[in-house]
């Protein structure tokens, strides 16, 4: 009755109405930002008096915005590689190992994901200050890697759970060395998990705000840090343009991820 869509009775319009409202609540602010980025009003009047590309122009002609976008891309790409490699190895060990404390170790690896990021950010900032690494690319990579790695361990671990290890053993029995078998048999078999790990790791680094604020220096900023610093001064529509680009990028990656999920089923 209550769990049968057709027999909900009077509850049905109520539930559907609420769901429509919440969907609007979730989607409208995103569409609103996209619309504002093309609006001509400096003061973000909505609906905009006329349409323009000038905020995108301002964005693309300002070397500081471009440089921060490039830094973001570079850091996210390096983090993705490290996260996938370390995540694959760790997932392999956790998945197949029989050493004691394996479950505790798994929990430890996932902790950076659940702890308040600000604590990690402040702690790392203190450490990097002592070693003279504050404000360097290495600091950014290490910090972002800490929060990207759990995504890799989960994604690749799930994929490994669904992979029968005896196939790898068969390859070894047929004369492959253990690493040859792992790279040529296991890696292709769990490739959907590896792609998911790569996409999530990239997004985790690309979107990271709190760690990045503490790792940044006046000369080295990622895109979110640049947005943050600008936002603290005023609400300029240039940020709407930057946000819209970030959103478009996210949608692209999400579609890509959905595509890989589908590919696995076929």
């Amino acid at each position, binding site marked *: *009755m*209550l*769990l049968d869509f057709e027999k*909900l*009775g009077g*509850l049905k319009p*109520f*539930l*559907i109405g*609420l*769901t429509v409202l919440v*969907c609007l609540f979730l989607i409208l*602010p*995103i569409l*609103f*930002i996209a619309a*504002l980025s093309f609006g001509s009003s400096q003061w973000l009047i*909505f609906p905009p008096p006329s349409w323009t590309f000038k905020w995108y122009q301002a964005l693309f002609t300002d070397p500081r915005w471009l440089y921060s976008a490039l830094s973001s891309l570079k850091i996210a790409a390096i983090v993705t590689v490290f996260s996938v490699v*370390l995540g694959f190895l*760790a997932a392999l*060990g*956790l998945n197949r*190992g*029989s*050493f004691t404390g394996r479950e505790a*170790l798994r929990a430890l690896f996932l*902790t*950076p994901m659940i*702890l*308040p*990021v*600000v*604590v*990690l*950010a*402040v*702690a*790392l*900032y*203190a*450490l990097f200050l002592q070693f003279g690494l504050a404000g360097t690319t290495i600091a950014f990579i*290490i910090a972002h890697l*800490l929060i990207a*790695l759990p995504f890799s361990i989960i994604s690749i671990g799930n994929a490994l759970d669904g992979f029968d290890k*005896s196939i790898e*053993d068969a390859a*070894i*029995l047929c004369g*492959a060395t*253990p690493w040859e078998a792992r790279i040529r048999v296991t890696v292709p078999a769990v490739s959907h998990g590896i792609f998911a790990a790569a996409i999530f790791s990239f997004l985790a680094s690309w*979107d990271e705000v709190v760690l990045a604020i503490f790792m940044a220096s006046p000369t080295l900023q990622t895109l*979110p840090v640049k*947005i943050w610093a600008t*936002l603290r001064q005023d*609400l300029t529509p240039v940020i709407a343009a930057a*946000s*819209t680009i*970030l*959103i478009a990028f*996210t949608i692209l990656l999400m579609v890509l991820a959905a595509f890989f999920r589908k590919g696995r089923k076929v």
Partner: protein
Amino acid sequence: MGLSVTADGGRKTPWRDGSFGYVVPALLLIAFFFIVPVIMLLMRSVLEPTPGLQNYRELLGSTTYLRVLLNTFTVAGLVTIVSVLIGFPIAWLLAIMPERWSRLVLAIIVLSMWTNLLARTYAWMVLLQRTGVVNKVLLSLGIIDKPLALVNNLVGVSIGMTYIMLPFIILPLIGVLKSIDPAILRAAALCGANKRQCFTRVLLPLSLPGIASGALMVFVMSLGYYVTPALLGGTSNMMLAELVAQFVQSLVNWGMGGAAALVLLLVTLVLYTIQLKFVNPNRAR
């Protein structure tokens, strides 16, 4: 796994000796850049400026800082309650509605969840400002006669945080509701229960562990949020994560920063342990 003969030299369980090596790189990373720095930060809270507990005494003894704690718990509590009240009906419908519709709703939820946090917060800063769309709509509908102050206070923070937390309660609740067997509700109806009884005495109790677990997760996440409270809240009503950042960034007071971080960390860990018990009651006992 069940193989007794492998090409690794025929040893019985080839992973017993080698497998730990695979986790070592990740373990080193976590040890050096997570465990060590967090412990060092917490040490500073009892060592700076002089050894002792004076930082904690100051943190828990002054009304200014207690105010911050109160703000943090109030906002997190409010956000959690509203998210559950809105999220539960949505998850309920999503669990039973035809798939082609639920897919669309899910896509919207996931899109909003993965949209950059700053982009979402910026949207609310613009929407909620004095001359923003929300105030304009309320004014033109005649609900209010002068613009409300919706940003730079805890109202703005609560709205922005609810927006962010809704997906985190809806998604797990869908799974919870899907796992309830509809036959149980049919049985209740056959035994003469009316709709309200079916809801309050069958559906709600069966989903309660899932609701509690999701609510705790949202509460914990809200407690430690930094970006949204910093941008939508005012300087006069800070939350705990902002306090940690302020001690370190503006005041360069590592002792107090470490103490505030420890309070945040402890609350998070305690609540998270409780949450784990809801997820897996057998293991926790």
